[in-house]
């Protein structure tokens, strides 16, 4: 490689040049603290989740139903309708990924399945875990239902849904979810 980047040698005072193990790296731990708030519409949604109820909101312009609900439609840039639409806790797998390795900060047993699930009555899939299923048999169009955590552990978080599992219904018709594949 060209030598234009070769740094000229340093001249060091004696006290430095006699040191065998110079510092080559430093550790600078840093913690920056925030109070995070997801905002109005997501809060509203998560309180309902804590009551075992999934909800969405509809855009007045494109009429799509969003879960989690948005305050503003991401394509139209207009405020979504204020009515909260109750949605069931069942849906269709539109796509998925089988994870075979542990990742930073989470303690799932591998392999596990991360699936995009199109909740019935909504127009956008939700990413969640899919369990109680042989990973070999997971496929697009699979019908699934939410398995909620115990009543005492319910809270305003999507982790109140422990995971989804097949609900035994026949596969969804391709046309019912093809727009999300």
């Amino acid at each position: 490689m060209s030598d234009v980047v070769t740094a000229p040698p340093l001249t060091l005072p004696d006290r430095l040049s006699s040191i065998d193990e110079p510092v080559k790296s430093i550790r600078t731990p840093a913690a920056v603290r925030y109070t995070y708030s997801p905002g109005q519409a997501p809060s509203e949604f998560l309180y309902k989740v804590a009551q075992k109820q999934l909800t969405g909101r509809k855009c007045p312009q494109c009429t799509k139903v969003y879960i989690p609900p948005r305050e503003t439609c991401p394509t139209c840039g207009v405020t979504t309708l204020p009515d909260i639409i109750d949605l069931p806790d069942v849906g269709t797998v539109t796509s998925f990924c089988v994870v075979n390795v542990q990742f930073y900060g989470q303690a799932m047993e591998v392999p596990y399945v991360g699936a995009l699930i199109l909740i019935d009555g909504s127009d956008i899939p939700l990413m969640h875990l899919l369990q109680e299923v042989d990973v070999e048999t997971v496929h697009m169009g699979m019908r699934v239902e939410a398995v909620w955590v115990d009543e005492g552990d319910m809270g305003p978080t999507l982790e109140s849904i422990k995971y989804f599992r097949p609900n035994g219904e026949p596969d969804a018709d391709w046309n019912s979810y093809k727009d999300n594949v």
Partner: protein
Amino acid sequence: MERVAIVGTGQTKHTSTRGDVSIGGLVREAALRALADADMTWDDIDAVVIGKAPDFFEGVMMPELYLADALGAIGKPMFRVHTAGSVGGSTAIVASELVSSGVHERVLTLAFEKQSESEAMWALSFAIPFQPPMHAGAGGYFAPHIRSYMQRSKAPDHIGILVALKDRLNACKNPYAHLHEKDATFESIKDSIMLWDPIRYSETCPSSDGAFAMVLTNEKGGDDAAAAGRPPAWVKGTAMRSEPTMFAGRDQVSPLGGQLCSKDVYAQAGITNPRAEVDVVEMYVPFSWFEPMWLENLGFCEEGEGWRLVEDGVTEMTGDLPVNCSGGVLSTNPIGASGMIRFGEAAMQVRGQCGEHQIDGVRTAVGHAYGGGSQFFAMWVLGSEKP
């Protein structure tokens, strides 16, 4: 509009940890090589445009402030772009517009990432309260879309392996590439662990420390370089497109933003048949399957046909549409710089500077970058002939 010429490129040897330099030292190396290639000194530069991906990687907010010394920017305009993974591309485009607008004559642009200062899985996806957990980082996000592509196109399973093998072997011809896996074979990639099924470990990109820099000039600068025997690459078109991360009915396999970006940039460059008219492509492929997906998205073939180009060897260095001769993102991934490496390698191909991974007689090259959830796109078309 002033014509824009790339008259200098420079990069660092990309590697997992550049333990011998500071962040300033890293960016400086790429900048010095670009200046030397352009036969210029710091004094010749009017402005500096820098890009990188999230500041959390190095834990430095707006690092361009501290890098002003290292990049010779004191007393000059110093501009910082951040458009997620496409940032290296959009940074180069902003630099080109500083020249094409006539605002400046000579601009240094640079993108970098020193990922070893922290860790990609942390910096890109630390948990945010109340948000659905990502479960598995970037691969977990993109794997379902790759599966959707496989379903839609009926592509056979081995296509991703072919792409990975090609890029790994191409990288061996690029002395600056991070991975030099000379022993990679179809079997070794096939047998690597299935991380995020359908993505195998060897079909993913590494985490790199690296920087890439370019010197852009106006028409006179390009002419002068040509006269001095250093032919420039001329900018024939630039385009950017963005769309929302998630929306109802979004096509994440072939996002409309990418399609429109490519149509725009080809129109500017007067390209009507990209497959026939483009000699070489550097596209942003962080997971092997994105090569066939982008081939379709960028209009190099019909929808559903991208994998056939891969299977037929069209995108090999010996094919008629070589893709990622440098080894691509699959072999080198300092995230914030990866887009600029694509743009810069395209320039190097046009200028005939690629050594072992040079394609003969490149007249037209495309550089492509994308970012976010396949939602930010940046492209440019370069040519050996003045537009």
